[in-house]
């Protein structure tokens, strides 16, 4: 069965306070000419799914996100599906 690599990016929703992002922003205030702002800290999860095709993988990834990987009260997610060999 084909194996697919899944890469999920999980980020806090726009309206949710992200104290880690704020702390990073404050600590980088004295970075000379670099004007960096709006830091948000999320997480990245990689794993492999074995399934007959990409369409099935897609629905399985969404199922796993809703079941455990993402808390949609505070987080949003995006993902990409690659052939494992790439």
């Amino acid at each position, binding site marked *: 069965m084909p194996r697919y690599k899944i890469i999920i990016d999980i980020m806090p929703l726009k*309206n*949710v*306070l992200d*104290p*880690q992002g704020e*702390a990073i922003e404050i600590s980088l205030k004295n970075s000379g000419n670099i004007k960096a702002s709006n830091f948000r800290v999320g997480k990245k999860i990689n794993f492999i799914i074995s399934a007959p095709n990409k369409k099935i993988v897609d629905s399985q990834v969404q199922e796993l996100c809703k*079941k*455990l*990987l993402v*808390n949609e*009260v*505070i987080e949003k997610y995006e993902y990409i599906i690659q052939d494992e060999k790439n």
Partner: protein
Amino acid sequence: MKKINFAVINFPGSNCEKDCFYVIKKILKHNCDYLWHQESIPNKIDCLIIPGGFSYGDYLRTGSIASQSKIANKIIDFANKGGSVIGICNGFQILTELKLLPGTLLKNKSLKFLCKDEYLKINNKSRFTSKYKNGEVIKLPIAHAEGNYYADKKTIKDLVKNNQIIFSYSREDGKIDEISNPNGSIMNIAGIMNKKGNVIGMMPHPERACESIFNNTMGLNFFKSIIHFHNI
């Protein structure tokens, strides 16, 4: 008064489970069992306690891995049948991940682990707080890094409308304001119950304030309330 059957659920990384057990069994003289997270819930149980701690090392999100354990669906069934469920600290986080309570607990606004006493204003219209006076202010310890209650505006509106906010961080005189908010929780929320009134989640630890040796017995009425409820 009949003896009430409590059970304290243990996950890898739970703590305070012995404190809960001790209060119920040794101080209040009621029945209490431990349940491992792979066990079933015996039919005799009246009240489940999900204790504090760091189940599964707080990996992914606090309480999230515990919400996938074997006992999870059994907790949901128990709650749906009207059984009393108490989630303290990490237990509160697990109950939100189980969707038995709305919202979630974010990292404290300060990003610090907070371990101190906090004043709490009580809404006594619940089976968990009936032994307190309405509006009474008590002091209980908190000990958490993720206790910053968050829910969307509609959920908060519903919590207020349905009287589901049971504990609010306050000043000693009961004033609820930003100064008395230790962790950034919306509306100073420290504890909520579900709409049906049989599931409560709270960040403060009543089981740590039940003996005079600690110079604080303000947590006792919490456990006495639920014992009273199951004796009606």
